[in-house]
């Protein structure tokens, strides 16, 4: 009977595997779990923080607030810090999912510019601390746009068939119900905080008319697609466009990436640190937030990520060419045309989410 040799051979497979497993680095006891936007904190900053706290910072990424909220609703437990946008903060607060911030542990909170404190989504900043801002706008391949004579300062570029005809299959839009519908609303001249379903219905029609010309719904891959040159126009976040611009330049691509806020207005996002109730390390979480509020660290999110900055102590450290970029730091006149998203009541939310399902399938 061959069996003993089989048993021995089985052992020969399993044992080394077990040994390999045992030899892998043990999980660090001090780990901070951060659920963050992709491309929203630089490697440098992370390393400096890990050295500072002698702990590990472990990140998971999302590329849409809805995705983050859905994941939490589906039972994700144990994230210490999240980085929701204003409207998602509102929703999380209402859900009673957040831990109150202990201001005594955040001496650097004073660095935040006053206009970013005490906002509508969190009066008195009981739960949230602003981290960075971005504008949802249009990024484009500047050479192609010039060649084709297309306007880059209007939502018409992604919604008007007469423009889209020239760039069919070369456009991506965000795979985000709130952001894409908001863009269509601005294009129609409506507010993104509109409550009338009929107006949203109009936005849906605009989207459905343009959809056949788009290549894909994409929340993150457009950074690479723009830099490589397979996609010429993308609806997305200013910091991602900045990244695509840098990547294309670094790889010496034969074209340049540009981005601009459409003249019809756009969505401004203020993204904030909040503490999730299920987090096991509020101590590390506070330490992290205070670290990120220090001027030299806060400046990284502008200098290395290309995001707007609510931190006053960071302002003098921000590179002049970034501070002067209107897509990253909107000038006062442009700020007038920017709106923030708001959380809706369940009924409207459901109506919109079903409109979105329809948009995706039609």
């Amino acid at each position, binding site marked *: 009977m061959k069996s003993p040799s*089989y048993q021995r*051979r089985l052992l020969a497979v399993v044992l080394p595997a077990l040994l390999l497993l045992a030899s892998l680095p043990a999980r660090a006891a001090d780990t901070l779990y951060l659920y963050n936007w992709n491309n929203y904190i630089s490697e440098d900053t992370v390393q400096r923080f890990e050295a500072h706290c002698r702990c590990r910072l472990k990140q*998971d990424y999302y590329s849409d607030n809805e995705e983050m909220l859905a994941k939490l609703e589906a*039972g*994700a437990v144990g994230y210490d810090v999240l980085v929701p946008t204003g409207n998602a903060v509102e929703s999380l607060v209402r859900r009673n999912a957040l831990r109150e911030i202990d201001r005594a542990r955040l001496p650097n909170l004073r660095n935040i510019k006053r206009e970013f404190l005490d906002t509508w989504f969190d009066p008195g900043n009981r739960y949230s601390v602003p981290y960075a801002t971005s504008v949802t706008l249009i990024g484009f391949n500047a050479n192609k746009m010039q060649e084709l004579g297309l306007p880059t300062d209007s939502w018409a570029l992604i919604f008007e068939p007469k423009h889209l005809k020239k760039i069919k299959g070369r456009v991506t839009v965000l795979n985000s119900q709130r952001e894409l519908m908001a863009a269509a609303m601005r294009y129609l001249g409506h507010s993104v905080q509109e409550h009338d379903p009929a107006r949203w219905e109009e936005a849906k029609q605009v989207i459905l008319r343009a959809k056949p010309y788009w290549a894909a719904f994409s929340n993150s891959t457009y950074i690479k697609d723009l830099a490589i040159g397979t996609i010429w126009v993308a609806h997305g976040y200013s910091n991602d466009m900045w990244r695509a611009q840098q990547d294309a330049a670094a790889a010496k691509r034969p074209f340049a990436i540009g981005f601009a806020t459409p003249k019809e207005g756009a969505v401004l996002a203020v993204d904030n640190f909040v503490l999730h109730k299920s987090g096991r390390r509020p101590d590390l979480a506070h330490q992290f937030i205070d670290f990120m509020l220090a001027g030299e660290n806060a400046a990284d999110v502008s200098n290395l990520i290309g995001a707007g900055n609510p931190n006053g102590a960071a302002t003098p450290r921000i590179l002049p060419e970034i501070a002067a970029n209107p897509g990253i730091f909107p000038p006062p006149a442009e700020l007038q045309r920017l709106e923030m998203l708001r959380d809706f009541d369940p009924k409207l939310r459901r109506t919109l989410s079903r409109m979105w399902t329809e948009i995706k399938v039609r």
Partner: protein
Amino acid sequence: MKKAQFWLWTASLATYAFLYIPLAVVVLFSFNDSVLNAEWVGFTTRWYVKLLHDDDMLHAAANSLLIALVSSSVSTVLGAMAGLAMHRYRPRWLPFLVLTPVAMPEILLGVSLLLFFRQVLDLSLGLFSILAAHITFSIGFVAVIVRARLAGMDESIFEAARDLGATPWATFHRVTLPLIMPALVAGFLMAFTLSIDDFVITFFVAGVGVNTLPLQIYSMIKVAVTPEVNAVSTLLMALTLTLILVASRFAPDVLKGRS
């Protein structure tokens, strides 16, 4: 006839090329000295070095290995029981229970387990939920392999053992177990491969901080595609390749057992 032979070879070689060229490109571009990885720039091994220092990736790999080892061990035991039971006692409900999870599109199992862990157990997702899910879909594969092995066997051996006065346990230990051992090894290796490869179901039931390798690769593909993805893919290929070769040495029929 010559002409038919020629076309048969041409078509087959074309299909083999279709199977291998994409993977060759992945491997080749893991040595590409370009962050964008859009065209060939130059040779480097720096992505492999980077991989060795990527803590997230190493943890994901450790998780994947741990999950694969535990889940394939448990499912080998449960699957062997199910295979034995199906062969010997033929309960009507068992084949349905064992085989349906294998036959269903994975997303359905993922969705139902997500709802189950959330609504019924009110359990936070994590290692346990992933293990339970992997065991659920692996049992069927092991059971099928074990049953196939038993079906090809002469029942009189077991009767002889009983006639000689062996207790059920002794019969199992001395006769049945050695006989089905190749099937167990094959089943174990198959369950291991399935577990380490699984993306869809894990995607639904994975919790915070318990990333597996496929999940890590998925988030890399979606977010920042550097040649590091190619490097980790190449290494993973090497690993599963070894496993398959081992499996095919142990029990050549395992390859057919899947179908």
